[in-house]
Each structure stands twice: as structure tokens, then as C-alpha cells.
């Protein structure tokens, strides 16, 4: 920084108007966005708290896996706020423990699918030609398989381990991201500023990562947020079919799966974890949607 620069910017600080700030400003003006953000942060606090308690073996008010057959299938009461299941386990404790698993699944699976999707989509869109053709036919082929059954098959063969489930969910769900990133790159590749960057002698990797990627960031980020509940839902579905995370580890999906036998007698086994799945998914979807709206007004 030169001395002149330091003094002038101290006197008149220019209105910082970076695209990131603009999106954040629009996002925080949106009430739905704020509400969903609060819900997401709440779920996170619970999930991280439970994760820490489990990892450090600190005493918990109630062990999620502790059975007590004398207190089985109790409706919500002062000790077990959300009731107990058929083995007398506390539903609230199990849901709290399950939130760690569900959110981990959501985030890690999103990260896996996003990284594959971005790389494949960027290469495809930027290079074009036969590379694009080959990669997109692979995507088409993958899209032909019903992904849920692909996941079921993979887990049946590899065994139900939480990390295998996460990676498999990520591996089958990157196609949408890849297509989206490719479409963005196809448009941005032809933009004047990419041509200008090339005319300045910039290398292709630099053009991809520095000039195109930041401009494609908004839609990619939105898909990322929206793919989190997708992964959570898939994991819940797998758990419900008892292909998910193996018991006794609680997840939102397998609490419902365990409770479905008692659906007529013990509604709390279904309704509360069901509501947790619903609320978390809705919050992520709404946040993703709000983010899309906030990022839509691009500078001219």
C-alpha cells in the first residue's frame, strides 16, 4: 500500500460493494431466510453439542442407547419429554444423537458430490468438444439408474457403515451439480471478460478458477445448500428400509423405522423424528431458495 492510498481511503472510505457483501445484505433482509438460518443454526448447535458429548464421553442427562423396559412406550412426560420407544429409550436423546449423524451425512455427502460435480462440470464446460461429449454421456448414463436403488445395491454389497453410506450418496448425486456447473461455464467461457483475460495472457487454470468460478459461485452455492436435505432424506429413507446406519446408533430415519410397528399406539415415535426431518429439510430448502433470490440481481 502506498502512503497516498492509505490516506485517501482513510478520509473517504469507498462504499464496499463486493458481490459477496451484496448477496449477504439481500439475504439478511429476507425474513424467511433469517428464520430458516435460525433453524439451521439451532440444529447445528444441537448436533455439534451432542457430537462433543459423545466423543468426550461426558455425562449426558440420558443415554440415547440406554434401555429401560420398565419405562417402554411411554407418551411424552416430565422425565422423557418426547416419550420413550419400545425398549424404553428416550426419544429426545435419540433424536439429539441422531441429529449429529443426519447433519454429518448431509454435509459430507454434499461436499463429496459438490467436489466431483464442480471438477467434472468445469472441465466439460470449459474444454468442450469431445471431452465434453464423453463426460456428459457418462452423466446421462448415471442418470438412467434410479439413484436410490444404486445406493441400496452399493450398500448391500459393501455393508452398512456410515462413511460408506455418505460416500455412496455423494457418488451418485453429483450429476446435477456437474450439469449446472457445465452450463454456467459454457455461458461464462464466451463472456467478454474471459476473452479479455485470455488476451492478457492468462493460463487456462487461472481463467477457470479465478475468472469463471467466482462468477459461477452463486448458483453452485445454492445447489450445495439444497443438496444437503436431499442427502439427509436419502439417509432417512435408507434407515427406514434398515439399510442405513446400523443400530443401535440412532438416526432420524431409524427412529421412525423402529417406531413404525407401534404407529397406532405410540404416535410420538413417528411424529417427532418426522418433524425433525421435515423442519431441517424445509429450512435448508428455504435458505437455498432465499440465497438464490439474494444472488439473482447481478451487477450489470
Amino acid at each position: 500500500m502506498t502512503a497516498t492510498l492509505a490516506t485517501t481511503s482513510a478520509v473517504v472510505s469507498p462504499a464496499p460493494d463486493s458481490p459477496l457483501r451484496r448477496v449477504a445484505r439481500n439475504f439478511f433482509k429476507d425474513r424467511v431466510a433469517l428464520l430458516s438460518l435460525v433453524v439451521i443454526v439451532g440444529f447445528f448447535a444441537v448436533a455439534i453439542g451432542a457430537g462433543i458429548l459423545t466423543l468426550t464421553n461426558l455425562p449426558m442427562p440420558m443415554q440415547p442407547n440406554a434401555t429401560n423396559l420398565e419405562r417402554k412406550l411411554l407418551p411424552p412426560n416430565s422425565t422423557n419429554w418426547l416419550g420413550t420407544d419400545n425398549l424404553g429409550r428416550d426419544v429426545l436423546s435419540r433424536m439429539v444423537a441422531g441429529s449429529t449423524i443426519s447433519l454429518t451425512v448431509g454435509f459430507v455427502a454434499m461436499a463429496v458430490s459438490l467436489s466431483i460435480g464442480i471438477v467434472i462440470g468445469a472441465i466439460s464446460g470449459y474444454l468442450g468438444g469431445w471431452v465434453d461429449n464423453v463426460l456428459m454421456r457418462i452423466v446421462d448414463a448415471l442418470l438412467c439408474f434410479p439413484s436410490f436403488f444404486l445406493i441400496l445395491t452399493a450398500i448391500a454389497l459393501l455393508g452398512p457403515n456410515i462413511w460408506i453410506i455418505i460416500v455412496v450418496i455423494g457418488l451418485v448425486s453429483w450429476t446435477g451439480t456437474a450439469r449446472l456447473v457445465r452450463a454456467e461455464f459454457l455461458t461464462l467461457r464466451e463472456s467478454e471478460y474471459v476473452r479479455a483475460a485470455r488476451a492478457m495472457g492468462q493460463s487456462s487454470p487461472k481463467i477457470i478458477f479465478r475468472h469463471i468460478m467466482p462468477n459461477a459461485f452463486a448458483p453452485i452455492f445454492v445447489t450445495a445448500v439444497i443438496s444437503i436435505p436431499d442427502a439427509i432424506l436419502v439417509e432417512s429413507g435408507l434407515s427406514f428400509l434398515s439399510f442405513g446406519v446400523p443400530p443401535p446408533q440412532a438416526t432420524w430415519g431409524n427412529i421412525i423405522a423402529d417406531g413404525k410397528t407401534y404407529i397406532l399406539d405410540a404416535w410420538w415415535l413417528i411424529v417427532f423424528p418426522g418433524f425433525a426431518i421435515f423442519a431441517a429439510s424445509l429450512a435448508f430448502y428455504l435458505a437455498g431458495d432465499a440465497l438464490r433470490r439474494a444472488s439473482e440481481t447481478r451487477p450489470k
Partner: protein
Amino acid sequence: MKPNLLELHDLSIRFRTENGTVDAVKHVSLSMREGDSLAIVGESGSGKSVTALSLTRLLPTPPAEFASGRILFEGKDVLKMSAKEIRAVRGGGIAYVFQEPATSLNPVFTIRSQIAEGIRLHRPDVKNVDEEIVTWLGTVGIIDPAKRMLDYPHQLSGGMQQRAMIAMALSCRPKLLVADEPTTALDVTIQAQILAELRRLRTEFGMSLILITHNFGIIRGLCDRVAVMFRGEIVEYGDTASILKDPQHPYTKALISCVPRLGAKRERLQTIDYGWLAKA
């Protein structure tokens, strides 16, 4: 004697499309010495921009292909350069200023970071990049450059954006500046300012310039020589003053008469009659 800065020998460029082959540039030969300024004048589709982009192989190949000819920049054949060599020429040897400043600047970065990129790439020995940016922005006539360089492109007016583009091109210290219709997207008063700026920079730095335009009106006093392109060919080539005074080719005459002149009494604006041209 020093070799010419730029030489085009019998350059032909074709575009292969699904609807057949288009000859965009046909057997064009040109040469420039350091400090020269050349205008390439022609209408849309005459091949002037294609010629300009071909100087650093910026055309996408395919569909474009070099059918014949050579491009020599400082005696080296551009068409035979490796990817690394050509990247050094782009920006460092030949820098461009494009038509649309608003879209030629990346919307998500500040002016400063975009100019800094070019300086770091082509002049790694520059220690104080910010100081350099401020100097160049000042040189192209941006007021309060230290503050303005922190702006994002959309915070600048069209004229300032184009000035920033010119600063970006010049900050790499190129041997040759190619301005591809640099004023077409700007309104008339800003056009005059930018042209005056280019004229001043040329005398100040002795910079070589290729100006691509369809407007004969703006080249006077800025370019010593002019090449008139029509349907991919150079139909007339000579020094600006004599061509403006006594154009030989009917297309040149037609182009010159299309420029409305202040004070001239005319019923209608002149256009080009191609049927008549084909016969001539």
C-alpha cells in the same frame, strides 16, 4: 535495421461451419514498425476484428483455421509459437482494448485486482504493484486513482471503465496496443475524450497502435496509415491523409461519404450500395 514490429504475409483465415466454409480474411499482408499507428477500417463482417484477434491466436480453432500465410511479431512466427510463448505475447507484447468495457471487466473483482493480475504476470520485477496501478490509472485520466481502483467495475461509468481497460492494457508495457472499436459502445463526448487520450498516450510513449474501427471520422490525427478492409480483403492501403483526401477504391469512397459531417447539407444519410460496388 531493426526487424518490423509486426508483419502479416498473405494471411488467410477460414471458418469451417456446418453450413460450409467462410473465408473471413483473404491474403492480407501488412507491416508495421515500432511507433507506427495503423487503422484498419471496414464494416461489420469485413474481417478486421478477425485479423486483430489472429495476431495472438485468440480465435477459437476450430472453427477458425489459418489457411495460409504467416504472422511475424518481432521477427517470430506467432503461428508456430508454443502455448507458453504465445501467452507471453498476449498482454506483454500485444495488448488489447475491446469494444465493450462494461463486459470486458470481470464483475466480481475490483479494478485494482484486475490490473494487478496483468502486472504480476508480465512484469514480475515490479515491487510496488499498487503504486504502479495508481500511476497508470492516473495516466489514462482517472481522477483520484487511489480511491477509484478499489471500485468494482459497475461502480464506474462507461468512459471510466474504458479508461481502466486501457490502463490495464498499458500497465503490462506492451509493444503494440490493439484497440478493437474502443469507442463504439461509448457516447460521443466520451468517444472524443478516449480518442484524445489515445492520441496523447501515443505521443507520450511512442506506442505502436492498431485501431480497428468502422468509422473513418475518428482516425484522423490518430493513425498515420490506414488499411481499408472489405469482404476479407485489403482493398486500399496508404497513409491516412492522402486516403481521406483522395480515396481510390469505390468502397473507401463510399465509407468516407457515410460519415456524417457537421455543417454538410444532406437530405439523407449516405449508405453503401452493394450492387453498384460489385460492378465497380
